[in-house]
């Protein structure tokens, strides 16, 4: 059975519409007017134990809202959630002891106290046995190098250090499932890489189920097999990264430098997307034209100096999807 199951999940926010001016203020106090914002609109998915799922979507898509419902912070407007067979808001405490949560934008640590004090408190709150606590602490210290700033107050930490401490804090009690909401936000390349490595390691080592949101496709590509894309509160893609690349990245960019300037170059299944004197950039649809055939034709018929071939980047594909350039649901288009 799936570890997480979400069925027809909906979350509506009631937004108080404030009217302008003094009269408006009095008016909205007496007769409050609400606007309903559907942040999550009928989402269903399930996640198996040990899976690592990337949860992406443009700003305001409803990622954080979904994570907050899954973690028991928000009560869904309708729909069902089950985490290990329990409902996160009806059995809040029971679910809380099974999960860990990291909010990249907001620390869980005690601002004015050294990191280790928060850890000790968490040990107490989650009733973590001494041995397990020490083992995890040693492991996290080694992998995330927390020991270097363990005794510093959190307010003095850099963002990267704070994030590492936050991640460790969320895993001290060996949760079966960890939710990350933008764990790499604002971090440099090296810090991001270290966090990815850590997440991957824990997932492999302990079989921890993980779901994380991010805006960095590298995060997803390097850690997850599965990806859920959400836009406007609905799921528009749920599948492997490999598949999305295969389905929507079935083209290559071929950049050619000719020895002289040719005009009116045209091949079947090939689009000229950039022309700069002798340099031309083609987009090759692989369903219509093999790159090798194109190269043969080019080198036989024209004087070619140099050729480079590029695979499409996942970022580009995702950008296309967000902007509506790629339609995922064939039935609708």
């Amino acid at each position, binding site marked *: 059975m799936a570890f997480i199951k979400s069925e027809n999940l909906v979350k509506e926010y009631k937004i108080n519409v404030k009217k302008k001016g003094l009269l408006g203020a009095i008016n909205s106090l007496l007769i409050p007017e609400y606007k309903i914002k559907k942040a999550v609109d009928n989402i269903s998915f399930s996640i198996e134990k040990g899976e690592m799922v990337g949860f992406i979507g443009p700003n305001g898509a409803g990622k954080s809202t979904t994570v907050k419902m899954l973690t028991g912070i928000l009560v869904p407007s309708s729909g069902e959630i089950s985490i290990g067979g329990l409902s996160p808001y009806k059995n809040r405490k029971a679910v809380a002891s099974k999960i860990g949560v990291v909010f990249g934008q907001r620390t869980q640590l005690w601002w004015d106290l050294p990191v280790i004090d928060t850890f000790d408190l968490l040990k107490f*709150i989650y009733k973590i046995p001494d041995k397990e606590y020490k083992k995890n602490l040693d492991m996290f210290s080694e992998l995330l190098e927390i020991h270097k700033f363990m005794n510093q107050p959190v307010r003095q930490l850099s963002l990267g250090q704070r994030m590492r401490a936050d991640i460790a804090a969320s895993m001290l009690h060996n949760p079966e499932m960890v939710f990350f909401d933008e764990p790499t936000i604002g971090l440099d390349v090296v810090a991001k890489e270290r966090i990815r490595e850590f997440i991957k390691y824990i997932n492999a080592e302990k079989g921890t189920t993980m779901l994380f949101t991010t805006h960095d496709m590298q995060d997803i590509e390097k850690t997850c097999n599965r990806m859920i894309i959400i836009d406007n509160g609905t799921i528009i893609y749920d599948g492997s990264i490999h598949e999305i690349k295969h389905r929507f990245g079935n083209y290559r960019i071929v950049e050619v430098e000719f020895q002289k300037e040719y005009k009116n170059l045209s091949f079947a299944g090939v689009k000229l997307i950039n022309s700069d004197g002798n340099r031309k950039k083609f987009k090759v649809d692989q369903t219509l034209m093999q790159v090798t055939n194109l190269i043969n034709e080019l080198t036989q018929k024209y004087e070619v100096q140099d050729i480079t071939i590029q695979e499409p980047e996942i970022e580009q594909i995702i950008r296309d999807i967000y902007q509506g350039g790629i339609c995922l649901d064939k039935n609708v288009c």
Partner: protein
Amino acid sequence: MKLLNNTFDTIRLFARFTKLNLKITLEYKLDRTLTFFAIFCRESVNVLVIYFILKKFISIKGWEMNEMLFLYSFLFLSYSLFVAFFTGIREFDSVIYSGEFDRLLIRPVGLLTQIICARMDHCAFLGHGAVGLILFIKTSTSVGIQWTPTNILYYIVTLVGAAIIQASLFMLSSCFNFWAIRTTNLRNMIFFNSRRFAGYPISFYPALIQNLLIYVTPFAFVSYFPAQYFLRKPELSLFWDGFLYMTPIVGVAMFALVYMLWKNGLKHYSSSGTSMY
């Protein structure tokens, strides 16, 4: 047995949090010391003003100065006790807007327990506590009270009840935060003005205010009736005798009601779009 265990856990958790909160307070020693003195001075001045105004009279409506100050000490001591446990409720709007509440929701501990543990305003606790204690020490022996075991027990239980009454009032206002309605100013106006009235025997006031202080913001059970239990002024015939013993009952009943409302409001909690820090 399970209940006992839970209670024990809660106490230990409270001790842990208290230690950490104390550590933070000590980190900002100077700032907190100054705040403490500011509160202590403000409250002392309030008392002194009353003292100097009323000094001219030997007694008002049969109340002597020491007796009035004894009554006043209930307000301070119960507020101090309230702050010791319910700072998180008093500052609930900031608990929500800072995102701290999200964090409480993902911990496997009861919410009320966490709110009670999470914050403590040491300055107000000590400031009000000190003024209350000074008044209590000055007056408790001179107004002719026999400190029998029964009376001591009454005193303690009533003081706790009085703190819970105030906690209920603050908790009621905190319910509105779930709908993102801020009531802090309105609450402070109602709370602190009621409290000001309750600094004097309620028999000084017209019936309307008396009734407000008994049935609406029941501060009469925080100062007047507890003081009357000990002093037994003849004017007691104005009110039902049972009121003398009602403080803990009023406290617990109010709290139970407000807590139910609070639990219900929780369903409407909508977190915040982004972080505050």
